């Protein structure tokens, strides 16, 4: 069942044919095992869509239909408006960045060779590959001089995933497929890499299809979330809407919709009707000021830490544009729940 509201995924498409489109995609194994069941949705160009659901819900299978590692039994997958079946599979895959959990890196190749793999398959000249590898390693925060000649077994889990991301970006694809890329990392490293991916995405605007079973990860990274269960799409909505209007009891339980703090985590200061700028206590130190893009969970945490429940908000130029109070914040969160 798809939520009754118009799909947020199709409403904001930048160019009509860019991105990924699933059109009534099904995948069955044998007569009775239907792993993906009549799934349709769009991943608009430049958006990050996260598929979330329990293991075995078909999310990884669906992801692999995009780069043709799995062929759907019926239905069609479009990439930039073209049926993926019309592409040479190898060329299609070289044009799509692919990040996977754990075994993604080739253990017998150095970091340099791993990152330069797709450009070398595409036949780039050596100097161009070397320059690109350096650029990509710097992009993901690894010093090429230090890490380039190491083997994957000589890296930490977080470093390996950074290399995996660098490799996926190396041939500068428009589209990234990410299959539980941070699943094997400890909580601290996972959170750090999520933050870095979000920052990278804000600069690069790739079309990302991301699969995870971690709801917090989905809420943090997604422009829109697709919830899957037993091969079907249960709901597709932006994070806040998913929390405030879960389609059914399954989604409500999956996202723990009643958790107000979680709801605050997907809302930003700019979503709240602010109080007048002079509302803040005169003595409040200016260092307490919030930015418009800070999330409300962070604002709440700041309030609890300082004991000051009325914080100034500055815009990008540093001008104080209003005051965020606890009451206004909770009001906004309740309104969002409509």
């Amino acid at each position, binding site marked *: 069942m798809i939520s009754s509201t118009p799909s947020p995924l199709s409403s904001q498409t930048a160019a009509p044919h860019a991105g990924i489109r699933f059109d009534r995609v099904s995948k069955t194994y044998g007569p009775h095992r239907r792993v993906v069941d009549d799934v349709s949705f769009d991943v608009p160009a430049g958006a990050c869509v996260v598929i979330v659901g329990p293991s075995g819900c078909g999310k990884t299978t669906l992801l692999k239909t995009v780069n043709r590692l799995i062929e759907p039994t019926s239905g069609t997958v479009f990439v930039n408006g073209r049926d993926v079946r019309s592409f040479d599979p190898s060329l299609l895959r070289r044009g799509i960045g692919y990040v996977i959990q754990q075994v993604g890196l080739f253990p017998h190749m150095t970091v340099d060779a791993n990152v330069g793999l797709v450009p070398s398959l595409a036949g780039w000249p050596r100097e161009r590959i070397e320059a690109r590898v350096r650029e990509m390693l710097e992009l993901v925060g690894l010093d090429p001089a230090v890490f380039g000649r*190491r083997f994957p077994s000589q890296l930490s889990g977080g470093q390996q995933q950074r290399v995996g991301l660098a490799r996926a970006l190396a041939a500068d694809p428009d589209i990234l497929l990410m299959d539980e890329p941070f699943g094997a990392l400890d909580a601290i490293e996972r959170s750090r890499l999520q933050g870095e991916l979000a920052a990278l995405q804000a600069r690069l605007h790739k079309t990302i299809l991301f699969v995870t079973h971690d709801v917090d990860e989905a809420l943090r990274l997604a422009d829109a979330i697709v919830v899957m269960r037993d091969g079907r799409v249960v709901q597709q909505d932006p994070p806040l809407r998913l929390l405030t209007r879960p389609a059914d009891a399954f989604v409500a339980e999956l996202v723990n919709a009643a958790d107000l703090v979680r709801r605050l985590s997907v809302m930003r200061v700019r979503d709240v009707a602010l109080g007048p700028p002079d509302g803040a206590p005169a003595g409040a130190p200016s260092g307490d000021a919030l930015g418009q893009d800070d999330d409300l969970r962070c604002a709440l945490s700041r309030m609890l830490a300082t004991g000051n429940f009325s914080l100034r908000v500055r815009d990008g130029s540093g001008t104080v544009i209003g005051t965020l109070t606890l009451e206004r914040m909770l009001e906004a969160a309740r309104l969002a729940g409509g």
Partner: protein
Amino acid sequence: MLVERTWLYALAHHADLAVALRQHVALSAAAFVAAALVSLPLGVLAARSAAGRALVSIMTAVRVVPSLAVLAFMLPVLGLGFVPALVALFILACPPILINTDAGFRDLDPAVREAARGMGMRGWQLLTRVEAPLAAPVIIAGLRTAAVEVIASATLAAFIGAGGLGTFILDGLANNDARQLMLGAVSVAGLALGVEAAASIALTAAARPRAADATGLAVA
């Protein structure tokens, strides 16, 4: 003293020794190379099919047959000389290469293969850039077993008139001459150990990247 007497015998017959050594190496090398040329591609194919699995089972059974029996079996079919010895040694060398090549490819993590395809590798690129390097340690171990077995078994070729270092052992037995026996045994053992050592170096080199975590950053 036997060692000294053997040494003196070898010096006196160094021309015979050189001929026997050349025959032994030529026979062994020919059988080994032929077996590798046939078994390596066959092993790659075997790892991809159910029929291949059956072939490997048959080869495992073939390994149980003793070398001497294979040689004796060749005698009525192919007669005496170099060719029957070559065929017999070829038959001996195939199973270890085939079995290990099959195992090396079959035991690869399917996820690695899928990742490689997901990067856009074609079949040949997947084979040469990912599968072969990762399977190399197991394959090289099979080649090493085959090489050592061939060198040791080539000694028996003297029994069907193919020459080689086994000639000294055969003559030593016939003449009840310990010096000849000793010379034949020591030179075959030396040859086999030399090949074993060379293969071990190759094996270490092939396995190096994945063993690197044990040595920390020594490679970097």
